[in-house]
């Protein structure tokens, strides 16, 4: 009759086992943290903030939270009116961030070729709103600092429509070139998490606007 003696785990084997378990926990934890890129981003609730002119506050909701934008109708009345008109009709909801340059700018608002349901990679960025073009409003001195919001245009002036951009760094050359419509008050870090593709023009499978609403 053969008897099997119980083998005792040595000290070094115990240490190795603990190490493997710790490594597994660490790897799983890291994966979860990396996957959730919004983990350390603060989400601002506009109801918790006092605003002087609520009618000029827009709340852009994207994957990582809210971006709170103050609009400047005194600087660019026509452009802000266009932006408000489209926002009131929820036209910007589900619009793609089709042009994203890392740490420089994000651009969205192509209502013709850049919506979630009919995203056209070949034409995105060229679409219109159907409300017609508006004139550039560039005569007021406006410093394009990080967080400034402006209407995009084609190579020519007076071709603004629905597309807008938000800059993630100061852009002094934009002054007098683009129509400013406002500035991000809270949540610019949310925009830094918008999907981009290094060194490429178009973002494949881009992020979208969940909603854009006015506080009025």
């Amino acid at each position, binding site marked *: 009759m053969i008897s099997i003696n119980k083998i005792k785990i040595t000290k070094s084997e115990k240490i190795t086992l603990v190490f493997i378990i710790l490594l597994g926990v660490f790897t799983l934890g890291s994966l979860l943290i990396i996957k959730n890129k919004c983990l350390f981003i603060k989400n601002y609730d506009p109801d918790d903030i006092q605003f002087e002119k609520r009618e000029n506050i827009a709340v852009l909701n994207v994957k990582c939270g809210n971006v709170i934008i103050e609009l400047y109708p005194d600087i660019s009345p026509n452009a802000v009116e266009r932006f408000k008109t489209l926002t009131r009709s929820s036209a910007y909801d589900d619009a793609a961030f089709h042009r994203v*340059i*890392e740490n*420089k700018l994000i651009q969205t608002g192509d209502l013709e070729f850049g919506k979630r349901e009919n995203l056209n*990679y*070949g034409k995105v960025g060229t679409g219109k709103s159907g409300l017609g073009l508006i004139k550039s409003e560039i005569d007021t001195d406006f410093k394009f600092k990080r967080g400034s919001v402006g209407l995009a245009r084609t*190579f*020519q002036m007076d071709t603004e429509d629905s597309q807008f951009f938000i800059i993630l760094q100061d*852009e*002094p*050359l*934009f002054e*007098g*070139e683009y129509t400013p419509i406002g500035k991000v008050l809270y949540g610019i870090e949310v925009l830094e998490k918008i999907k981009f593709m290094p*060194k*490429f*023009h*178009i973002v*494949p499978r881009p992020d979208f606007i969940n909603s854009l609403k006015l506080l009025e």
Partner: protein
Amino acid sequence: MILFRPILLFLILITPLKANTIYNLIKIPNLEIYEINNENKLRYLYAAKPFKLGVSIKKNIHCFDSDKKTLDKKYKIINKNLNRYSSEFLKKIGLRYIVLCEDLSIENINTAGIPNNITRTLILDIKFNEVYFERAIHHEVFHIIKDSYKKLFNEVNWESLNKKNFKYSECSTCNNKWNLDTYTKTKGFFTEYSKSTASEDMAEVFSHLMFYQHKIYNGDPIIKKKIRFIKKSISKIDSSFKFLNYD
């Protein structure tokens, strides 16, 4: 056709992004800011590296970077001359960006400047003709003015100011009339280069009006008519515009 869309999409996706604000604004690569805080809001850019431009694959406009010493020296001269144009006037004529580079050429022919009123840009060769460098700046500014106000500077009307038997060349580089020395006896033209085309003739009259300290009109009736033509047309753009003389 089936393959066209995927190929187009592929081409778009692999096109490297020139994430450069200047390039996005005026479509000239390799530029950096030299000075942008000017009273008349002109933005001075310089070639950090050589660049090539052109609408086709064959890029026929070339210009090269310059050393800092030359840039600093020429910027002062250019800035002094361009500061004579107010921001309101520059806005009306559509001039906003000045690109400083050297050995500027188009189709391998050296040129003082290349204006583009669509991009509101004037490329200047900072090493072009040392003697007439300052006057050439105003000459090139005129081309921007004319491109923005083609009707005001009607070439047929201008040609009628010349003697009946005179004909301009087909283009400004179609002959060897490139001398920029001002004639002592003008006979309807300030320089030999004036005789190349109506556009260059206008630019020469404008640059003489802008630049020379002494009175340039010497009793030549054709020159007198040309000066009146230029002054009248410019005043329609901006009635407060001041030339150096004659005002």
